[in-house]
């Protein structure tokens, strides 16, 4: 399998009243065909913005992509014309959003919202588009698909709407699916169903998936590799197992320590990360995590550590002291 996507030094900024906010600050990663990648971090760490940047959907003003390359199937998306970009959106790269209640247009039927994508990208006739839409709704498990085409979004539940969103996203068999907090707004039981659905369909269609979430449980179960983001940068990357067994960055360790677990007995209080995420327009000169890090010293305050590893493995981390940390004691490896 080849490389599907290479992101190189992607930078996205927003103008705000207090200055320029570097929401995505030099993010680089790659993605293999058919791979599932997790992008994890707190709210406001830049994970959603980095996904929207791939599709060049950053609202401008106030935002803009100021640098970097996004090489997708050999071409740099940042260099395409808007017209070429449109032929990729919804066709080769599709996206599912966080809010199923507001992401569908309230005044258009589900059918119209499904058919327009295949009509646009695959040149289907209206009749063929309707047939394809019925197939898609059946594929995502919506019963009585044909008659539901004439329904409006408010006649569907949240989980059903997210299924419709998935059907729309997968309608042109994309090479890459961006799932931005796709299950966050749903009930826990529905979350699992939707994630299973995404997993099964992406495997079936050979679609690579980037799961963007703050839910480490989701990532543990569904992602092959994980990128952890903090303050606009990737601060740790490894396979899901590596990240869960031996997190090297104090932030990742803090995140994992703050997840309540049912498979480990514990009597102490749940650990939490002290402090708040930093203002992205006022970052300290060294490592962004310094103000909240119990291990920080003068070196950390002076210089941002590069994303690397001591022993040259693929498990990389942006911490001067990362190699000193051992396996996280609380964590028992999951199957």
């Amino acid at each position: 399998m080849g490389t599907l996507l290479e992101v190189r030094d992607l930078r996205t900024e927003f103008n705000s009243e207090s200055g320029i906010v570097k929401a995505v600050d030099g993010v680089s990663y790659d993605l293999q065909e058919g791979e599932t990648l997790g992008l994890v971090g707190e709210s406001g760490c830049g994970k959603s913005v980095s996904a929207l940047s791939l599709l060049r959907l950053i609202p401008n003003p106030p935002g803009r992509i100021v640098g970097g390359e996004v090489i997708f199937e050999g071409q740099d998306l940042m260099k395409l014309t808007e017209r070429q970009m449109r032929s990729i959106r919804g066709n080769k790269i599709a996206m599912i959003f966080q809010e199923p209640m507001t992401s569908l247009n309230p005044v258009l039927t589900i059918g119209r919202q499904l058919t327009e994508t295949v009509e646009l990208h695959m040149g289907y006739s209206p009749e063929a588009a309707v047939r394809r839409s019925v197939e898609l709704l059946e594929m995502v498990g919506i019963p009585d698909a044909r008659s539901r085409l004439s329904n409006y979004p408010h006649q569907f539940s949240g989980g059903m709407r997210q299924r419709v969103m998935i059907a729309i996203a997968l309608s042109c068999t994309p090479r890459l699916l961006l799932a931005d907090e796709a299950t966050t707004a749903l009930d826990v039981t529905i979350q699992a169903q939707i994630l299973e659905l995404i997993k099964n369909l992406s495997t079936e269609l050979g679609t690579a998936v980037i799961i963007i979430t703050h839910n480490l449980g989701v990532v543990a179960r569904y992602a092959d590799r994980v990128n952890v983001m903090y303050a606009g940068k990737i601060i740790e990357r490894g396979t899901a197992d590596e990240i869960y067994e031996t997190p090297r960055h104090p932030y990742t360790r803090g995140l994992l320590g703050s997840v309540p677990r049912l498979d480990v007995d514990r009597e102490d209080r749940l650990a939490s990360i002290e402090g708040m995420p930093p203002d992205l327009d006022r970052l300290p000169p060294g490592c962004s995590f310094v103000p909240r890090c119990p291990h920080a010293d003068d070196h950390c305050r002076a210089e941002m550590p590069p994303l690397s590893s001591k022993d040259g493995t693929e498990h990389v981390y942006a911490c001067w002291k990362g190699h000193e940390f051992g396996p996280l004691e609380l964590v028992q490896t999951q199957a």
Partner: protein
Amino acid sequence: MQKYIARRVLLFIPTLLLASVLIFGILRILPGDVALAILGQEAVEGGGGYTETQIRELREELGLNDPLPIQYAKWAWSMVNGEFGGESIRSTEPLSSIIARRLPVTLQLTVYTVLLSIIVAVPLGVFSALYQDKWPDYVLRMGAILGQSMPNFWIALLLLLFMVTQIGWSPPLGYSNIWVDPFHHLQIMIWPALILAWRFSAYMTRITRSGMLEVLAQDYVRTAKAKGLGQQLVVRRHSLPNVLIPVITLGGLEVSTLLGGTVILENLFGIPGLGQAIVEAAVGRDFPVVQSLAMMLVFFMLGLNLVVDIAYSYVDPRVRYS
């Protein structure tokens, strides 16, 4: 839907009752006596005088000596039995014929204004929103604020003055029915329609613009863009129908203000509509005519609100009346 409409029409009744009492009451409070006015005019024309007895007899004949509740009841009954309030005291023309002659003219003026405004305001509002805070937006917003701040009658007077003094042209005095002489009809109707439309479209442009800005920030518009749809489809298919919901509601309410404008402009431009008739009748204390025509305007507004509500259910699938 039929049930909903029927219920709404039933609710017209209390509103109409209240409005009729108000209109009737206000007219009785006004100073001035129609019997005196009629006799005085006859006396001037005939060159003679008139006597107390004549006044008493005329008042008796016109039913002005009845107690007010009886006068009201007579009028109210004649509104519902198809006589529309009887006849003019001055010209003795039946009101049914006055309304049949005058109402279409006012309706036409209103329709021209609303159509002109929609044709102009919706595209401009969308355009303004798409160029938010760039110079086309500023220019359009300035024009809209101007249109909203200048009173109709003032613009009308300036326009008439300008046309008469500078280009030596004034709108024709006589009115023609559109089916008889469309060109002549438009010659007289176009100016008041344009003036009314400036104000109305200024308002509509502003609400379209703000509605559009709100819709463009919605998640479903982002979804539409993420599907790869072009700007045109994003605006026309995904945004505009959502913008129309507030535009229809607010625009429908604003038509009541528009009716106030037609009353004034009909008089300035000599257009024989309801507005002109009401003013003429009010000056001559022609109670039956003022009462009945004012009731027609009330009825018109109620009907318009109902139409707006029904239109709503077509634009917004979430609203289905039962």
